[in-house]
Each structure stands twice: as structure tokens, then as C-alpha cells.
């Protein structure tokens, strides 16, 4: 009896002694705010909101593993003005790590190009943390269109500028950007027909009101039966829609990757050690298998994660594309 008790005590003591060594936090000296506000510039229930709510529980745990301090991240929905309200509030927030947020690309640079946005200049105001969600654009030809192939429709838009209609969420959306990118690459000139959201755009696409529809992955999944042809604006095929060729495969044009990107960023000025911790915590979260399966269950289009500088590069790339296409937006009358 005595020996068993002795053994147990020894075991217990050794566990207590070993535990901190096993779980020793990497950054024990970094002070983490007790609550971290995560600003989402769209309503609760939207796709950005869903991303935040799926990511944050795992991210909190990752921070605790890294620093040994517990924190709770709360989502703050600040919708309005096409996202500008939320992003402005993020850019002006105390840069002490108590506030981060989701920035949406290409919406952030596009809104800045369109008007005096409160968060200007965005590349300097936001510090990249990490991103793992890019919802690629898909271009589809409607089954009721008089054109038989996308190539034929693009050809008609070259011969007779403005005669081919493209319906999409917009204006100034990622779909709108993708359309101009295709125009620029092919020399075609479409007529852009904006709808207030993906759902009405899909309806019009199915009803045959427009020739071409540009949307994201799930827009294509929902309207698959109404499309004669479709192509994804990526360099490689996208896993969820393996049967859809890339624009390069189908049309032979090289235009790069387009889609709707939702990434986490902090207001610039946030202390360097905290930025480091947050980035590593996002890297750990994005690679967590439970998180990945939960995200897939919720139809979140996750891609290979990009953390820190890699995300910064993506942000700069988005700004460059916006500047590149700016003249087309101005010609279309969408930006003054």
C-alpha cells in the first residue's frame, strides 16, 4: 500500500515537474491582451464573419500555446459603406494588439481608388498577419446565350464592343476586377451588368438575362446546370471544382490569379513581438486539421496559407492590379 502511494506521488510529482518543460511556451515574455477585438467589415452571417468565427477559437488556443497566456478573441461586426466603416475603424484602432481585423481583397484597394477612404493608404495602415482564404473567380457562359463557347463570346466582344453582357455582383467587386482583367488580356470590351449580391446575379445568369456570369466557386456550383462552359481564373485547377479548366487551358490566355481574398491584419504600429506571435498563431491555426475540416464543412474556400511577408506580397500584388485596371474602371464610369 505504502509503496503504491509512494509510486503515485513520485509519478505525480514528476508529471508536475515535466509538464512545464513539455508545454513550455515559446514566447513567455510577450504580454498578450486579455481580449482581442476582431473587426469584420460585414454583417454577422456573411462569409467573412463565418471565417472569423471558425478561425478564432483555434487561434486563441495557439496563442496560449505560444505565450502561456490565455486570451479571448471576440468578433466585432462593423458593416457599412461597402466595408469602409469596418476597415477605417481597424486602421484607427489602438495599435497595441487589442484589435485586429479581416481585410478583404480586392475590395480594400478598390474602395480606396474609388473615393477618399478613411483608411488611406491601406498598404501602410495595415500590417499583414495571415491569409488562407481565396475564393477564386469563375467565368461561365450561360446556356441560353447565343454564343456557343466562351472564346466565341470574347471574339464577339472584340468585333462588336459592348454587345456581350457580363452579369456579376458589383460594381467594384472582385468579379468586376476579374472582368477588366479579362478585357485587358484579350482586348475584348464587355458591358458590365451589376447586381446587388451574388444571389441575384446567379438568378439573372440562370434566367438568360446576361451572356456571361462571373462569380466565385460556389456561384458556379449553384448554377452549374445553366452554364455551357466555365473556366477558373487560377494558374491551376481548384480542388472543389476539379472539372472546371483554368482560363489558360480553355482560352489560352495568361492573366494570373483572381478571386476574393479574406485575410487577417493588424493596424500598423502593433508591437513587433505581438505581430510575431499572432502570425505564428495563424500559421498554426491554418495548419490545424480540425480547423481545416470545420472550414470545409462551412464551404469556406481555403487555400495554401500565406503568413506574414507572403501575405504582404499578396496585398502589394492586389494594389498593383488595382492600379493596372484603374483606367478601365474610370472609362466605365465606375470611378471618377
Amino acid at each position: 500500500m505504502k509503496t503504491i502511494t509512494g509510486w503515485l506521488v513520485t509519478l505525480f510529482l514528476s508529471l508536475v515537474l515535466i509538464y512545464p518543460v513539455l508545454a513550455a511556451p515559446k514566447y513567455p515574455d510577450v504580454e498578450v491582451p486579455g481580449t482581442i477585438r476582431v473587426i469584420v467589415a460585414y454583417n454577422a452571417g456573411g462569409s467573412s464573419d463565418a471565417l472569423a468565427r471558425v478561425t478564432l477559437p483555434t487561434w486563441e488556443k495557439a496563442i496560449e500555446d505560444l505565450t502561456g497566456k490565455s486570451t479571448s478573441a471576440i468578433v466585432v461586426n462593423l458593416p457599412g459603406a461597402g466595408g469602409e466603416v469596418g476597415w477605417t475603424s481597424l486602421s484607427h484602432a489602438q495599435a497595441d494588439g487589442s484589435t485586429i481585423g479581416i481585410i478583404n481583397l480586392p475590395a480594400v484597394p478598390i474602395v480606396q481608388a474609388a473615393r477618399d477612404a478613411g483608411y488611406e493608404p491601406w498598404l501602410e495602415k495595415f500590417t499583414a498577419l495571415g491569409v488562407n482564404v481565396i475564393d477564386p473567380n469563375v467565368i461561365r457562359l450561360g446556356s441560353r446565350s447565343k454564343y456557343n463557347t466562351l472564346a466565341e463570346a470574347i471574339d464577339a466582344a472584340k468585333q462588336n464592343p459592348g454587345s456581350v453582357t457580363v452579369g456579376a455582383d458589383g460594381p467594384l467587386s472582385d468579379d468586376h476586377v476579374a472582368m477588366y482583367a479579362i478585357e485587358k488580356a484579350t482586348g475584348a470590351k464587355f458591358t458590365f451588368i451589376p447586381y446587388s449580391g451574388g444571389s441575384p446575379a446567379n438568378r439573372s445568369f440562370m434566367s438568360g438575362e446576361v451572356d456571361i456570369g462571373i462569380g466565385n466557386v460556389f456561384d458556379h456550383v449553384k448554377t452549374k446546370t445553366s452554364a455551357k462552359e466555365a473556366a477558373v481564373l487560377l494558374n491551376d485547377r481548384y480542388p472543389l471544382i476539379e472539372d472546371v479548366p483554368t482560363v489558360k487551358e480553355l482560352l489560352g490566355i495568361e492573366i494570373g490569379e483572381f478571386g476574393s481574398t479574406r485575410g487577417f491584419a493588424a493596424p500598423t504600429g502593433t508591437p513587433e513581438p505581438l505581430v510575431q506571435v499572432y502570425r505564428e498563431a495563424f500559421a498554426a491555426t491554418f495548419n490545424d486539421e480540425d480547423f481545416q475540416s470545420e472550414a470545409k464543412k462551412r464551404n469556406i474556400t481555403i487555400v495554401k496559407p500565406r503568413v506574414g511577408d507572403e501575405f504582404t506580397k499578396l496585398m502589394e500584388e492586389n494594389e498593383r492590379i488595382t492600379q493596372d485596371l484603374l483606367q478601365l474602371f474610370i472609362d466605365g464610369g465606375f470611378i471618377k
Partner: protein
Amino acid sequence: MLEQIIEGALVAFELRHILLAFAGSVLGTLLGALPGVSATLGIALLVPLTFAMSPVAALIFLGAVYCGAIYGGSISGILLNVPGTPAAVATMLDGYQMAKQGKGGTALGIDIISSFVGGQISVIVLLFGAPIVAIFALEIRSAEFFWIVIFAMSTVGAIGSTSPLKGIIAATLGLAIGVIGSHPMTGALRFTFNQPALYEGVPVVTALVGLFSISQVLILAEGKGMESQMNVPSVGSLWPGRRLLWQLKNTILRSSLIGTIVGLIPGAGADIAAFIGRNEARRYSKTPELFGKGAPEGVAAAEAANNAVVGGSLIPMLTLGIPGNAVTAALLGGLLIHGLIPGPMLFQEAPDVLYPFIFSLFLANLFFAVTAFFGLKYVAKVVLVPQGIVAPVVAGLAIIGAYSFRNMGFDIWIMFGMGMLGYVLRKADYPLAPIILGIILGPLAEENLDRVMTLAKAANLSLMGYFLQRWLTITLMSLTIFTLVYSLIRGSRKPQSATVQLPAEED
């Protein structure tokens, strides 16, 4: 589809959803019974309560409030000759007479049963009708959508409760407010005065809360505050007897169908349905001379009709995104907050939200009936709440609601502004519902017209040429012109003695 319906029923019968339907139904009944709080105001005040709920739960709760409030209004109408909601005015005409003759219990019993049957019949129509309408609506293009919206606006003048001119003026005001915000086609900002809060236009929920609640608070504040110390007369047995009910069966069925159909038509609400139902009952009655003197048919016809509006009015709201009256506009606001955009796609994208919601309406109708049968004594007590207490509570809820929608302080000012506007208009006897319809429908009309113009240009056609391409568009255009001509004729005619003056607030 059958699978989705069954699944929907199962979700609706989950315990928490049953409880929410119960809470909503009872709360709706109480709010409806409270003179000065209409179904619209009730929902507008309760929408913020649903922000934290799941979309299914929120819709179930708000739908139940709608059902309960339309019924609840009749209680104070029958007992005190004070309609709790405008929809109860028609019920009151015979109901109060019956109560004076000592048949108050019978009147209330008929009231409960007719409301229940009317409500259930309309929900059956909604359950099977809405998905069919949604399938047809998938074919609707921007041109047709534009004309449906214009048709909805034109009915405001043709069948609205006050004079056509005032209805149209109110609708125009709504359209003007609807212009604020970014242009739907180009994104250019209009009348926003550099206020980010206005970039996306005046939010519907905020406008609604302001228009209906603040104006109501101001009207309540005109009184001394303690005057509703009335005595609730005691009533006998609520059971009207099998024989009387059997006699009323045709009246109830007819009115239920009338109510459902009136609900479908944009511009008409529960108040108008109740009057049409009652008029038809009088036409078919063997004893029309008893109407207005305590005819049980009068109560049955009015109540079955106004509760049947619930199901009917949800069909255009859910399938087209076009609210026909102020209550469904309030519900629409509730839907939008949860990321659900009403329209033909909704039945494909969110059947898991819609079917449970529709089934929960059956429950909501059941719950107010059961509550009323067993607890009418207590429910009736709410009419005793002094207005001096109602007014500040409503004002407080309105401020919280306006702020919590987007967490923007500016929204509180928008709400107060709309409230002052609503008060002035109500004092001048203008209806408020067309303003809300204008705010919602104006941007829809503009957006679709803009698109049609761009599409016409791309197709190298004139605007008229584009409209005349499809028969559906032509039909809708003709319908709109007919309605406008009718309302002009109606406006130029002298008011007939048969039309009853309705309060400016609509349900």
C-alpha cells in the same frame, strides 16, 4: 422538395424552436392587445432581440410575433371598443356590440377560432404556393422585376386605406429617402454628406423603428399618460357552441381565402382584408341588417380574413423580396440582418431556414389560440397598462434597437429624424406604410431600370423596344397602367358611405 418539407417540419418541432414560437406568439398577442402597439411596431421593436439568434430561430420568433399580434389586436377591440391594432377595427364593429349585449365570451371565442382557422389556411397556401411561385420567379428578369415593383407601388394609391393622393405622396417621400446612398449601378454616392453611415442608404430597420415607434411615442405623449384605467368587463364562457360554429363555417372559410389573396397583393394589409372579408360576409348573409349590431358572422369574417393575411403576405416577400405591407417590410429587415436575401433563389439556397419557418407558423397560430382560450383573463389585463409607461418603454427599446443594428451612434439620429417625420405625417393623416415601401422598393426599381437601360443599349434596342420583347413584361406593364387609372378614378370619386375611415397607421 418533399424531403425538404419534412426536414423543415422536424426542425420546427425542435424544443427550442417550439419554445420560441410560443414566446413569440404570446408576446405578439400581448403587444397586439396593447392599444398603440401595432403588429409592425411590435416586430420593429423585437427585431434587435434576434440579432444574436440563428436565422431559423430569428424567423420563427418574428413570424410568431406577427401571427400573435394580428390576433391580439381584436381582444381590446371586442372588450373595450379600442382596437389594439388597425387590423382589429373591422372585428370591433360587431365584436364590441356583442360584448355590450353580454355575449362577450361568445364573441371572443369566435374571434379565437376564426383567427386560428384563417391563419392555418393561409399557412397551408404559403407552404405549397411559395415554392411554386419561386420556381416561376426564377424566370423573372430585370425588366419584369422593375414592373412588378412599379405595380406594387401603384397599388398603394389604388387600395391603400387613406386617400390615393396622400398614399402616393407618402410613397414618393419614401422613394426620395430611398435615393440616399450609393448608386446601385455606378456606386457613386448621393446625399450622403460624407457620413459613412449613409453610404449604403438609410437602413430599413432603423427607418422602420423611427417611423413607427417614435411617432407612436409622441402620439402617446400627447395624452395625460394615465387614462387607460378602464375596467375589463368579465366575460362568460368562451366556447361559442357547436351549432353556432357550424353556421359560421362558410363565412370563416370564405374570409380565410379572401385574406390570403389580399395578403398576396402588395399595398393591402390585414386591415383592408378584414373589411373586405366582412363586406363579403354581409353580402352572403341571410341577415345583413344585423351587421354592426352584434352579428357573429361579422367577427368571424373579419378575424379569419386578417389572420389569413399572414400567410398570403409572406409569399411575395419570400419569393420576390417585395414586401406588400409594413409588417412584412419589418420582417424583411429581420431577414436581411441574418444575411438572407429574399428572392427566388432563397428557396434554393436556404430551404433549411424557410421550411422550418413556415411550419413554425402553424405552431404560432396554435399557441395564440390555446393561450387565449385558457388565459384570456390575464392577456386582457395588458390593456390596463397606462400609456405613461408604454411610451417610455417603447422609446427605450427603439433607441437600443436603432443602435444595436450596426453599432453606429449616427443611426440613433436617423431614427429620431424618421420619427419626427412620421409624427408630422400622422398628424396630417398620411399613411406611414407607403414610406417604408418606398424606401425598400425605390432602390429596387432604380437598380432594375438602370440595368434594363444598360442591357437595352448592349442589345442595340430602345428602352421601350426592350420592354416589348417579352409577354410577361407587357402583361405587367398593362396591369400597372390599369391600377393607376383605377386609383385616379377612385380618387376623383366622392367617398362612399360604405367605406369606413381607417386610422392612418396600417398593418
